[in-house]
């Protein structure tokens, strides 16, 4: 089978060490590797503060949540951080069940998630 079409992953560098990762569609065991790959490329490229925009994420499973936890750990090792923006109620429910709502900072929009992060981002 070719590249999964169930998910749409894209990212935008905002200058400094900040980036927004947009995840659209369904993220599960099949499509999580695409998310992981993008996150690793961003971190390897110097990103230290990452907003994950979940506005268009329709489905997220435990492997995707695990990948986000892995990304948060990796960013923290570099004094960085990861915030989640605008998860749909279904995804919020999963974050609550797994208690990850307390681990991640969850904001209602990308703009709110970026608040407090100056353009320089964290020092690498």
């Amino acid at each position, binding site marked *: *089978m070719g590249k*999964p079409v*169930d998910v749409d992953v894209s990212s935008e560098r905002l200058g400094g060490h900040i980036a927004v990762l947009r995840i659209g569609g*369904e993220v*599960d*065991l*099949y499509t999580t590797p695409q998310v992981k790959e993008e996150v690793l490329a961003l971190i390897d490229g110097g990103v230290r503060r990452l907003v994950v925009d979940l506005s268009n994420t329709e*489905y997220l*499973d*435990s*492997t995707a*949540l*695990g*990948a986000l*936890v*892995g990304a*948060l*750990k990796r960013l923290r090792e570099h004094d960085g951080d990861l915030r989640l923006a605008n998860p749909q109620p*279904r995804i919020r429910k*999963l974050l609550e*069940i*797994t*208690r*990850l709502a*307390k*681990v991640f900072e969850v904001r209602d929009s990308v703009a709110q998630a970026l608040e407090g992060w100056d353009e320089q981002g964290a020092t690498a």
Partner: protein
Amino acid sequence: MPTTTTSRVELKIPGRPEFISVARLAVAAVAARMGFDYDDIEDLKVATGEALTNAIQDAQSRGVAAGEDIVVICALCERELVIEVRDKGSGFDPERRRQAVEQDELQEGGLGLLLIEALCDKVEFETKPDSGTLVRMTKRLADS
């Protein structure tokens, strides 16, 4: 299986990640036909997806690259839907996985079990050396 089963839908899928969504959609269609509401259908999709993920990851950890078939059975009962996910896996210790998640909030694995148990009304695990692992998940229809 409960004795009140009125219909049964069986699906056999290759134990590979790209087929998980196929099973999720099938379960969602069965649940919709039974009259489950949107939230409950989504709960069932997640629970089914997590049970399949467990089974496939277990096969991968045993070095089964091609993916053994996994059977998903939906037993439609009068007021509940029972979903069984059967694989040839060696099983796992649910209690050990629960403890791993509780001890480390940044645990990357083991979240699936937490989701299955939270989203279903009843969950049973069975592991037999000759027949593999079975996860049985029950969701009751809300009173209308």
